């Protein structure tokens, strides 16, 4: 059997982490290719429903990253996001979702190396956890439903 290659979706903010990931590339730093980056204006814009969607569409892990506290382009988007993630993580925990599959981080535009490390570490930890079958099996109910309700 082939080795398990996790699918990671990264929700990043335009101003810090996306620029940071750019720097990783221009610095010629190699990192795991499992990550699909989705650019947002701000971490404050990242709705928790997007994370639910990512898992339902087959992601095994999720990265959410933006500007460090006090560095937000819009002053307070990341502070709002921080509260939201504090509550959301706890909510997932309460409902039995494997919350450690979502990795939160602050990566600035100058931290190209940190981005590479973050992705590599996340890929490693998700490889250990394995595919997120539980959530993906639950998501199959949608396909079945669509077939019977055509």
């Amino acid at each position, binding site marked *: 059997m082939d080795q398990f290659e996790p699918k990671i979706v990264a929700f990043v903010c335009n101003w810090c982490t996306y620029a940071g990931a750019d720097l990783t590339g221009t610095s010629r730093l190699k990192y795991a290719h499992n990550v699909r980056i989705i650019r947002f204006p701000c971490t404050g814009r990242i709705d928790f429903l997007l994370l639910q969607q990512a898992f339902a569409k087959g992601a095994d892990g999720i990265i959410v990253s933006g500007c460090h506290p006090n560095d937000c382009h819009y002053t307070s988007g990341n502070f*709002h996001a921080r509260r939201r993630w504090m*509550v959301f*993580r*706890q*909510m997932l925990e309460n*409902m039995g979702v494997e919350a450690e599959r979502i990795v*939160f981080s602050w990566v600035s535009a100058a931290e190209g190396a940190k981005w590479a490390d973050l992705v590599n570490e996340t890929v490693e930890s998700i490889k250990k956890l394995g595919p997120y079958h539980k959530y993906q099996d*639950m998501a199959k109910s949608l396909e079945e439903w669509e077939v019977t309700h055509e």
Partner: protein
Amino acid sequence: MNKLKEKAKELLSSRAVQVVVGYEEGTGGKIRPAFVSRPEDADKLLYNADCHHNLALYLYKHETKRIGKMAVVAPPFVLRSILILTTEFQLEEDSLVVLGVTPEEELIEFANFKEIETWVNQHPIGMKEKDREMLNRLNAMSRDERWQFWQNEFSKCIKCFACRGTCPMCSCFRCTVDYNAPQWISVGSHQLGNFDWHLMRAMHLAGRCSVCGQCGEACPMDIPVHLLSFQINEDIFKMFGSRAGLTLKKESLLSTWKSNDVENFIR
């Protein structure tokens, strides 16, 4: 509860309010919400421990606002709901007469919302024994057991949205679940659609729940949906030291922040 009836009569006959929202006896020995607009009907109003409907639900709807000024019979959880709705700009103080009722079934009148704030802070609401036990059971479970528990519960869900319909905090004219472009939550009542719905509902109520438990009460499939809100309410108290419905400060938990919020998971 004669005092309540007298007060309602007085308010209606003096035309101080157009309608009193309260409780009456329904069919099959059950209690139901009542809208009393004539003084002679005020005698059917009652209050006892079985009155579980959260009447704050009716205070901001188009249909009831059109009637005119309202008075509401308000047990402690309705008082809390009124404070939350006020901080969210859904209610105005002068549109409402609040007839508070204590768990001891006594009438208390409030001159203004500030007095309600003081009262609810002096009289905390305890959780029902049954709910407390269930939360303890859930917390003692492993995470996989919790996942299984909620998957089993959600498999019963028929997406009737009674939990939403009965909750005064679900005050949006159009709910996220009703959007189809983009469609956030699949409409069918299959495992994924049900899970997404309940997670979203609980998240949208986080930090805004008055802990009345009416969502679980309304569920025709007996899913204990209220436990999701009860548990996060406890967690939020641990994390941020605040509970919803105890203040008139316009600081909804997830629409404000502090620079020193402490988390332990962001790298």
